[in-house]
């Protein structure tokens, strides 16, 4: 079944002190994942950013699987990041533009991971900037039909975030006759003439940042 899952975390709003406390991060990371941060490749990523990177990956994986199995409950430590690849000499830069969109992640530096949940193995690509972490999860390593976007907005009000992220996605579709609704399980769906299409979409927002992903068949 085709699915997609994404998440965005605004790094300006995280509580750095709290994130570094074991009683906090141990609710998100397993001991094995916590140990991953000691690997030399992650020296350029502060621990609090590492914690929220894994949160973002796990939340995206949950959203991906929720479409397949609506009964799944989000327990971060049950989504295990088994592999994490960071580009050599990765450096966190400022997001000096208003928005970024793409198809696949072939031409952009991302952190890639494999996630295990029960019998599922999922794959992710995460962008990290000084301002946010944005992740997209797919069921295969091939992201060539994965469309995504990240944008800075001017208001952090939930109603504005929600409206803006829908408009951002619709404006990046070739046919803007689409609308976005939610199915009876509260999962976002793409509609045309009020009919649900089989294109999975995922939306996220946090403070002044919004993001989407959608997946077409390969």
């Amino acid at each position, binding site marked *: 079944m085709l699915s997609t899952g994404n998440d965005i*975390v605004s790094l300006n709003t*995280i*509580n750095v002190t*709290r994130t570094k406390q074991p*009683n*906090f991060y141990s*609710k*998100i990371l397993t001991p094995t994942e916590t140990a991953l941060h000691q690997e030399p490749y992650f020296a350029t990523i502060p621990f609090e950013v590492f914690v*929220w990177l894994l*949160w973002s990956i796990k*939340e995206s994986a949950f959203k991906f699987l929720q479409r397949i199995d609506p009964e799944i*409950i*989000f*327990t*971060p*430590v*049950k989504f295990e990041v088994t592999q994490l690849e960071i580009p050599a000499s990765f450096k966190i830069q400022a997001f000096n533009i208003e928005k970024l969109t793409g198809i696949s992640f072939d031409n952009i530096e991302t952190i890639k991971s494999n996630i295990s949940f029960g019998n599922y193995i999922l794959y992710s690509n995460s962008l990290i900037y000084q301002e946010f972490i944005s992740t997209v999860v797919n069921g295969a390593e091939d992201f060539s039909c994965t469309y995504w976007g990240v944008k800075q907005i001017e208001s952090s*009000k*939930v109603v504005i975030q929600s409206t803006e992220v829908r408009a951002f996605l619709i404006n990046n579709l070739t046919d803007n006759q689409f609308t976005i609704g939610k199915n009876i399980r*509260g999962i976002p769906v793409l509609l045309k003439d009020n009919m649900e299409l089989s294109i999975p979409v995922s939306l996220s927002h*946090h403070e002044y940042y919004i993001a989407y992903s959608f997946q077409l068949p390969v």
Partner: protein
Amino acid sequence: MTRQEILNELKKVISPYTTNKEMLAQINEDTDLLKDLKINSANLVDIIIDAEAKYDIEIDYDEADKMMNVGSCIDVISEKIGQKQQ
């Protein structure tokens, strides 16, 4: 503590994480933290940590994943307070 007393305290724990103060004032056991109170999922761990501190309890992973609505939060907190008193 009665369920109503826990609910009243829980309102204070949740308050910093929701901008929907109108809904917060009217919360009941069916209120969903994410859908009704519009709490960002990134704040769920904060709520669990704050509840742990408030009631001097420890909520582990399997219990935390039940805390999606106010009633289930009260179930978990009430059970933990009960265990502490034994």
